[in-house]
């Protein structure tokens, strides 16, 4: 079966943008086109999948058609993919499947979200759209709340403590400090991260991702086309995805994400590797507890030892066992919901090609993973990438 490569990737800075949807998409797509070394032209794209929640309702219907017409991809099949914060992770998977199936040779997967052009109140109406509206929302829960419940339960079951989350926050802010695309580039000390104001007890400001605007674009190609367009492809070694009950109360456990475990198992299987082979991982740390649980669910730490993993600094870039969120993650790089999944792939593409700022480069990285979660874990996609085809 055909192998699939990422041949180009680009993004906007994540944060507060004066640009609207069309402008942000044009910027990230232009950056992605420019990253292709060979003779590429947007009319060569066969299909496009664009992840977005369409936050705020500005352009919910036909979002993809609006965007692609402004980036030279006319008249091709396009659609918006929606799976909450995992929208573009799934857009990428759909693009990968389109090539795998033989239906397309060059496919664009991207994501976009505009979050900061709403009043704070309207924003909080939209922040909960991907949770279990009927039961969780009526109990006062949106995502800070659901992740806070998971955190407190993890503390109770495994003895992890809030300082473990503080370690994750400090690490990710440190990783994101030199990332020109990151939303919050602040050197956050342990003491500062300990003393953030409470958002959802036990989670404070420094446990939460910010609300960001941004777009990201990735270009995938079938092996025979990829080799003509670049000398430096990044290969998709595995694509896994899973789902789970939407509401926490319907799950057998709230200290692990089954969707992540299933997605990871399938991606590792396809790639013929295990967690210990991963050099760097962009994981979905919408809240610091989400990273702690992801290190367990993805197999970097034993069950219940995500806190210890964080305490021992095992996710630090070029110091630990695996670089977790070398971009700064959602915590520092930012979280423009629909743009996050392909944004993670932009980072991995550049890291594996040795193209990020030298201070951020993960040394000798050959194998990488991205982990993109929808909401509190109802959907998840995991991808494994390599410098070489196995």
């Amino acid at each position, binding site marked *: 079966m055909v192998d699939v490569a990422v041949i180009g990737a680009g993004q906007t800075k994540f944060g507060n943008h004066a640009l609207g949807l069309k402008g942000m998409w044009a910027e990230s797509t232009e950056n992605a086109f420019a990253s292709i070394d060979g003779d590429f032209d947007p009319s060569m794209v066969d299909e496009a999948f664009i992840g977005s929640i369409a936050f*705020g*309702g500005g352009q919910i219907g036909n979002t993809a058609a609006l965007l692609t017409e402004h980036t030279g991809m006319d008249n091709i099949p396009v659609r918006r993919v929606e799976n909450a914060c995992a929208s573009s992770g799934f857009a990428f998977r759909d693009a990968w499947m389109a090539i795998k199936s033989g239906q397309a040779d060059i496919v664009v997967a991207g994501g976009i979200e505009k979050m900061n052009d709403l009043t704070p*109140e*309207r924003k*909080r*109406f*939209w*922040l*909960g*759209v991907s*949770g279990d*509206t*009927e*039961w*969780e*929302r*009526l*109990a*006062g*829960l*949106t995502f*800070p*709340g659901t992740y*806070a*419940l*998971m955190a*407190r*339960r993890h503390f*109770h079951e495994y003895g992890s403590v809030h300082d473990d989350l503080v370690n994750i926050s400090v690490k990710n802010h440190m990783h994101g400090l030199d990332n020109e695309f990151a939303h919050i580039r602040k050197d956050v000390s342990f003491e500062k991260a300990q003393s953030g*104001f*409470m*958002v*959802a*007890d*036990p*989670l404070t400001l420094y446990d939460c991702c910010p609300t960001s605007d941004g777009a990201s674009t990735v270009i995938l190609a079938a092996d025979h086309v990829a080799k003509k367009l670049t000398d430096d492809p990044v290969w998709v070694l595995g694509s896994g995805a899973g789902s789970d009950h939407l*509401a*926490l*109360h*319907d799950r057998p456990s*709230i200290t692990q994400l089954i969707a992540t475990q299933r997605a990871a198992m399938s991606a590792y299987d396809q790639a013929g590797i295990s967690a210990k082979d991963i050099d760097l991982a962009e994981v979905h740390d919408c809240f610091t507890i989400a990273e702690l649980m992801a290190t367990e669910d993805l197999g970097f730490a034993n069950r219940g030892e995500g806190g210890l993993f964080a305490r021992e600094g095992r996710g630090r870039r070029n110091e630990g066992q695996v670089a977790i969120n070398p971009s700064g993650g959602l915590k520092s790089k930012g979280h423009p919901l629909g743009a996050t999944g392909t944004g993670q792939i932009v980072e991995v593409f550049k890291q594996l090609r040795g193209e990020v700022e030298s201070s951020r480069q993960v040394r000798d990285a050959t194998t990488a993973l991205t982990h993109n979660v929808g909401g509190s874990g109802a959907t998840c996609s995991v991808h494994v990438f390599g410098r070489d085809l196995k």
Partner: protein
Amino acid sequence: MSSNQCIDWQGNLACIQQSGLVIKSRHSIRGKHVFGPDSDYTTLAISGLELLSEETEISNIKFEEPIDLFVMQACGYSHDEEAVWEIVCDLDSASISISKSEIVSWEVSGNEMDEELFTQMNDAWEEEMTAVSQGAFVSEQSYRSGGPSRMNFNSQSLGEIRIWPPREMIGDQRPSDAAPMKKSGKIESWTKLSAGGAPSEFSLRAPILGGISTVFVRLDEGPCGVFLIADDEDGKPVIGNSVTFAVRRIYAQDGLIRYGLKALLS
């Protein structure tokens, strides 16, 4: 019915007498009973009826506004003009009588409530009634269709398994309706949300209350659920502690107050 048994009941003050029961808010301002942050005549009525139901079966009852007909029906009480039991609201005080023949009364003093908090909460509820959603929302239809589960723990079963909240299919089977579950469980996790961490539906009241608390509970009959804490109590939930439940106001939107079961900390 034993007479003059006066107790704290579901965060209210209740007194069972010969011919019925008086139930009052435990809050008062200058000696007059006033409603707490999430209570009203409807929540008092449901609470009183639950207490009476421990001794006598009541299904038909006479009542009128301001008691919410939908909530009463969701909790299993039908309105009947000819019923022997009648609910009478004392509109000057947060107090009602539920009795067979004559209105029953009882004098008891409540806890003095901060008047400013009371006024702020009342104003907030009034403003909330005119609020409209600008994003995610629970429609009136979806609120109403889940009413008996939300307010009375009506459940389902499939073989030995107890199911709540209701599900459409489990595998290839549809669960059947089952009796309401016991209103008790144990806290498995909890959080307190600041206004910034809570949905916009709570944006007027959460800042006044200093946040709202939610518990994740495993019910004694098996299923789990998430619930706000009744009366927006200050008390800290503790994992492993027992809770019981009572109907309270949740929020108002589009002119409709949404009610549901909230957890009472033991």
